[in-house]
C-alpha cells in the first residue's frame, strides 16, 4: 500500500517538476510524509485491512486497537421523516436464534394517528400524479434497493433465519416485485376500466381511482418479500399507505423507509410503523380517516375484531388468507384498493 502511494507521488512530482522549484520541493516533501503515514497505518492494522509488510515482522507489536461498533438506531418512517416513537418506547429485535440484533421503535396509537394525517396530506398529490410518474418512482425504488442489496440480504437473513442464498433470493424477488408493479401503474386502468355498452345515447366510461389512505398490516412471516408484496400494489395505484411492519422482524421494513426517502417518493405516501398489529391495528381499523385496511398481518381472532371495527365507516377490507409470496402476484392486490368512477356522457345522435 505504502509503496504504491510512494510511486504515485513520485510520478506526480516528476510530472510537476517543470512548474517551478518551490512546488517541486513541496511535492517531494508530500511524498515523504505520505510514505510515513502509510507505515503507521500499516502497523496499526485496522480490522479488515490487509496489514502492510512491516506489521508481519513485529510479532509482539502493540495491542490491536479494536474499532467500536456503530449501532444503527432504527426509527419509524412517517411523513417522509424518521421520528422515534412518540411514546419513546423501543423493543428488542432478535434473530431466529434469539440473539439480539437491534432495538426497534414500538409505535403507539398516536404514531398511527400522525401517520394517517401524513398519509392524508400526501394522498392528493400522489393520486394526482400521472401513472407514468408513479411508475418511474416505483422503478426508482427498485434501483435504490439494488444498490443496498447486501444490507437487505443481511437483515432478512438475520430476521427470518434464512441461509444467505435464501435471503438473497427473497431480496431479489422483492426488488423484481417493485419492477413488476412499476410496470402496472399505467396499465391497470385499461384492465379495470373501459367503456361500457349501454342502452341509450350515452358514452359510458368507467375508470379506476385510488381508494385513499390504506392501512396495511404487513405479513408477520415474510419480513421483506411479503412486505413489498403488500405495500407496492397499494401505492402503485395512487393510494397512500400506513403500514404496520412484522413485529418479529421489522428491520428490513425500517431500512426500506430509508430507500423510499431517497427514491423521489413524496413524503407521507408510505408511512412505516414497527410495533404490534394487536396494539395499533384497532386504532387504524376504527379511524374514520382511513379508507381501507389490509389485514394480511392479523391472525384469525384479531382479523375478525378489526373487520368489525372497520365496518363503522365502511372501510374496504382485504381479509387475510394463506399466500405464497414467491408466486406470481397477479393483479388481485392492485384491484383490491380501487374505486370505480363511471361517467355517463350524452352523445348526439
Amino acid at each position: 500500500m505504502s509503496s504504491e502511494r510512494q510511486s504515485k507521488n513520485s510520478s506526480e512530482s516528476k510530472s510537476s517538476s517543470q512548474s517551478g522549484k518551490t512546488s517541486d520541493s513541496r511535492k517531494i516533501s508530500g511524498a515523504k510524509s505520505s510514505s510515513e503515514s502509510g507505515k503507521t497505518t500499516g502497523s496499526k492494522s485496522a480490522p479488515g485491512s490487509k496489514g502492510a509488510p512491516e506489521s508481519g515482522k513485529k510479532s509482539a507489536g502493540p495491542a490491536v486497537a479494536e474499532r467500536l461498533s456503530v449501532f444503527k438506531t432504527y426509527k419509524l418512517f412517517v411523513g417522509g421523516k424518521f421520528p422515534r416513537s412518540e411514546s419513546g418506547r423501543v423493543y428488542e429485535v432478535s434473530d431466529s436464534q434469539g440473539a439480539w440484533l437491534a432495538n426497534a421503535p414500538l409505535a403507539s396509537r398516536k404514531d398511527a394517528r400522525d401517520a394517517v394525517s401524513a398519509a392524508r396530506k400526501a394522498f392528493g398529490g400522489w393520486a394526482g400524479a400521472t401513472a407514468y410518474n408513479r411508475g418511474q418512482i416505483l422503478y426508482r425504488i427498485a434501483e435504490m434497493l439494488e444498490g443496498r442489496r447486501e444490507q437487505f440480504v443481511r437483515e432478512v437473513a438475520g430476521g427470518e433465519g434464512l441461509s444467505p442464498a435464501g435471503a438473497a433470493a427473497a431480496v431479489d424477488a422483492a426488488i423484481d416485485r417493485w419492477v413488476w408493479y412499476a410496470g402496472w401503474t399505467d396499465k391497470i386502468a385499461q384492465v379495470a376500466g373501459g367503456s361500457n355498452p349501454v342502452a341509450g345515447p350515452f358514452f359510458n366510461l368507467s375508470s379506476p381511482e385510488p381508494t385513499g389512505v390504506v392501512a396495511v398490516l404487513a405479513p408477520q412471516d415474510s419480513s421483506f418479500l411479503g412486505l413489498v408484496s403488500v405495500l407496492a400494489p397499494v401505492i402503485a395505484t395512487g393510494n397512500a399507505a400506513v403500514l404496520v411492519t412484522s413485529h418479529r422482524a421489522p428491520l428490513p421494513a425500517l431500512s426500506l423507509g430509508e430507500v423510499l426517502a431517497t427514491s423521489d417518493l413524496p413524503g407521507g405516501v408510505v408511512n412505516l410503523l414497527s410495533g404490534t398489529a394487536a396494539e395499533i391495528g384497532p386504532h387504524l381499523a376504527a379511524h374514520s380517516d382511513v379508507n381501507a385496511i389490509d389485514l394480511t398481518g392479523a391472525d384469525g381472532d384479531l382479523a375478525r375484531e378489526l373487520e368489525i371495527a372497520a365496518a363503522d365507516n365502511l372501510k374496504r377490507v382485504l381479509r387475510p388468507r394463506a399466500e405464497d409470496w414467491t408466486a406470481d402476484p397477479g393483479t388481485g392486490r392492485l384491484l383490491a384498493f380501487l374505486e370505480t368512477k363511471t361517467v355517463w356522457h350524452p352523445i348526439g345522435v
Partner: protein
Amino acid sequence: MSPLSPLTAPSGLPTVPAHGPDAAARLATLADVTASDAALRRFLHGLPGVDAVGLEARAAMLGTRSIKTTAKAFAIDLAISMIDLTTLEGADTPGKVRSLCAKGVSPDPTDRSAPKVAAICVYPDMARIAKDALGDSGIHVASVATAFPAGRAARSVKLADVADAVAAGADEIDMVIDRGAFLSGRYMEVFEEIRAVKQACARPDGGAAHLKVIFENGELSTYDNIRRCSWLTMLAGADFIKTSTGKVAVNATPANTLLMLEAVRDFRDTTGVQVGVKPAGGIRTSRDAIKYLVMVNETVGDDWLSPDWFRFGASSLLNDLLMQRQKLSTGRYSGPDYVTVD
C-alpha cells in the same frame, strides 16, 4: 414586586370591566401619565424591560402540561366557546359569511351538545349580513375596521369605517393601531386615535360596541414594544387587546400572548380595570389552543377563562377542536371528512 414604580397601586379596588361605565373613572386616576406626549413616553419607557429568555422559557414550560380525559373535554368545549370564527379574505361573499354563521351557531351538526362560538369576525361590509344571519343566537358580530389590516388611511376614513360597522350592527370592533406612529415614538397619536375610535364605537341607544385593539406583534419587533403597546392601549380604553391580524408572517405566539396576559393582570392590579386578550392567527390545533388555556389559567386565573375575557381569532382551529371532540365522544379518530369545509 412593583413593576410600576411611577405609580402607586391602589389596593383592594373592586374589578370593573373595561367596557363598563365605571372604567372611564378608573382610567382618569391615571390621567397624569397620559397628560402629555412626554409624560406618556416617560411612563411607557419606564415600564420594566422584558426578560425575553425567561418569557419564552415560561411560555414553553406552560406548553408542556398534559391535559387529558375530562379536563380535555372541558378545555375543548371552552375553546370552542371562545372562538371568534373568522373569515377575512378578499374573496368573501355573502354566501360564505352566511354559511360561516350557520357553522358558528351549530359547529357540529351531528352533535348538538357542541357549544356555539363566541363571535363571527368579518370585514365591515359583511357585518350586516352576519348580523342578519345570526339573529338572536347570542353570537356576536365582530367587524374589523380602521383600514384593516395595514391601518394606513386618514383618521377620518378610519372613523367612518368604524361608524359604518357599528351602524351595520357590529357588537365588537377589531381596530388596528397605527404601527408606523408607534414605532416612530408618536405614542400620543396612537393613544388619541384609539380614544377617537372608542368614541366612534358608541351606539345611539347609549350602548357601545366593544373595542378590540390589534397590535400586530410581528411588526412591533421587540417584547418591550409589546409591553408598552399593551399599556398604551389599555390606558386609552381598549376592552380587549389582540395580538395580530393574521396577515403577517409572525402572528400569535405563546410568548407574546403570555406577555399580554401579564400586562392585563398588572393593569388590573393597578387600576382595577379588567381587559380581555385575544390571540389571533396561527392557532390551528386543539393542542395549541389548550396550551393557551393553560397559560391563561396559570397567569391570570379563572377570571379570564370565559369568552368574555379571552378569545381565539381562528378559522381552521374550530375543525380541529371538533375532530378532537368526536374522538373523545366516540373513541375513534375522526377525519376532515366529518367536519364542514369552509
